[in-house]
């Protein structure tokens, strides 16, 4: 009898993703879902959906979900986790959501070391609204609100969220990953697993930042988008662990 090497995780519902073809949101969803399944926490997990292309992922993750207002997912997650400390709570947020409008909420979730896990999908653009500039948009990158390319004299240099949050004592675990090839997909999954393990162990705030693509608004084919990501995003947003607890500690 044949042996299944890979099949769709049951931590995803059967609903088809609404993402554009080749959008890495889908890969990231699968990774998160598989981790929830493998850690056997799906049935006590409550996820928080952002406002962004992933807004409807409450239809995809096969667990209890709350849809949060734009940028406020960490506050919503805080509300949930504080009243249900034994449940697992995660947010899933884009860069417009987390790095722009939701800056205060992510900083203070880290600051209070809320025992939640944040999945941060940085595709350097506002995907859902049609491709406006994000704080993470690269210098020179053309978007609908930076039609001649992002100019640092006008808009500054892109903000590096993992680096910034890593200065906060309460930020227990922070890693930046990518899913541009199968090797990195595997690494990314390890990172997500470590992040949720932190939460299970009560160690406080954990976040995994994915550099991700938006083929449609970048105006590229899905594969070209991945290549562009490797050539442009990763050099500016280096992958790696930005913060992890020292042995035995909760946080600093």
């Amino acid at each position: 009898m044949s042996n299944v090497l890979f099949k769709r995780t049951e931590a995803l519902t059967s609903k088809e993703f609404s993402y554009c073809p080749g959008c890495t949101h889908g890969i990231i969803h699968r990774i998160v879902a598989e981790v929830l399944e493998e850690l056997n926490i799906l049935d006590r997990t409550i996820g928080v959906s952002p406002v962004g292309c992933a807004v409807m992922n409450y239809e995809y993750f096969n667990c209890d979900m709350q849809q949060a207002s734009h940028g406020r997912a960490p506050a919503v997650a805080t509300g949930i986790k504080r009243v249900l400390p034994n449940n697992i709570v995660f947010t899933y947020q884009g860069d417009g959501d987390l790095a722009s409008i939701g800056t205060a909420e992510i900083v203070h979730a880290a600051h209070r070391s809320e025992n939640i896990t944040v999945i941060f999908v940085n595709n350097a653009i506002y995907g859902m609204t049609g491709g406006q500039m994000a704080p993470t948009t690269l210098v020179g990158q053309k978007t609908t609100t930076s039609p001649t390319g992002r100019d640092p004299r006008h808009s500054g240099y892109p903000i590096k969220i993992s680096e910034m949050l890593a200065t906060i004592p309460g930020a227990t675990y922070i890693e930046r990953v990518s899913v541009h090839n199968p090797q990195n997909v595997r690494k990314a999954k390890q990172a997500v697993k470590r992040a949720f393990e932190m939460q299970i162990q009560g160690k406080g705030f954990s976040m995994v930042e994915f550099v991700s693509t938006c083929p449609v608004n970048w105006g590229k084919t899905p594969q070209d988008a991945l290549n562009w990501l490797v050539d442009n995003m990763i050099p500016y947003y280096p992958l790696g662990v930005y913060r992890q607890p020292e042995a035995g500690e909760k946080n600093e």
Partner: protein
Amino acid sequence: MAKVMMKGNEAMGLAAIKGGCRAFFGYPITPQNEIPEYLARVMPEYGGVFLQAESEVAAINMIYGASGAGVRSMTSSSSPGIALKQEGITYIAGAELPCVIINVMRGGPGLGGIQPSQADYKQVTRGGGNGDYYLLAFAPENLQETVNIVKEAFDLAEIYRNPVMIAVDGLIGQMMEPVDVDMEIPKREIPEKTWATTGTLGKRERNVVNSLYLDPQALENHSLKLKAKYDLMREKEQRYELVNVDHSEIVIVAYGTMARICRSAMEILNEKGINVGLLRPISIYPFPEKAFAELPSTVKGLLTCELSTGQMIDDVKIANNGKLPIGFFGRTGGMLPEPEEIVDAVIKMIGGMKNE
């Protein structure tokens, strides 16, 4: 139990706990600070959560999360802080979550001042968020009523799955009065929170807390469902007090601290032989339109009195529907009238009517 002296803000904090509140998220702002400060001390004794949020915006979204997780939760703030919560409030209404919001009103607009005011009437009753939604909103006039309503609010919020706002002016928050926080409130059947996201535990279908409906027909259906709820509130939750309206020529319409000042004015008027009644809205959404239908035909005019330049008066006009002439007396910005000012306003109104 004997009545104890409590500051309004602290009494509201304790009443919330007695009403089953086990999660409070808020942000400092005068004149409501004693609510969070009290709960910071006392909530832990009840095993509840007290957390100071980074902002009003964060606080209301924490409420969304905690209410969505099935726990009775409350936030409090004051006027500009409530303005910041508007997006969160419309989300909570849209997602049909219960919660209690206290607005200890101060003078506006903008930063305004910190003295007592009722100039948030429209902010409270019309919402400032987007879309077709309303809050159930109460505006009590003394601490006993306030405490009872805060306790009831948690039941009502769950029955209607809707946010309940309690709007008091800063004076009610700051004053001390004897109050019995254990006074019985009506027992109601509270529906089970089958919708709460508490983890499926493998025992039920997953729950989703959400206000997004991309299909316009679905969103219309949702809005009509909400509207049916508001219609039901209108039918069932109108609250008001009618004082001395029989044989009165003029009926004052006033709520909260302004109603108390008007009561003193009525005593003075009574001594002068002028018979004046009071129609006191306790619920401001739904506005007690029924009370107007109960007014006897002796009534020849309504005098709306507010701590604002005139906001509730629109609701009075709608409820009155052209029947009686409507006068207005208002002070705003934190100014509290002396009862004599209202006496004068009533006498002037009577004079004006006679001259017509």
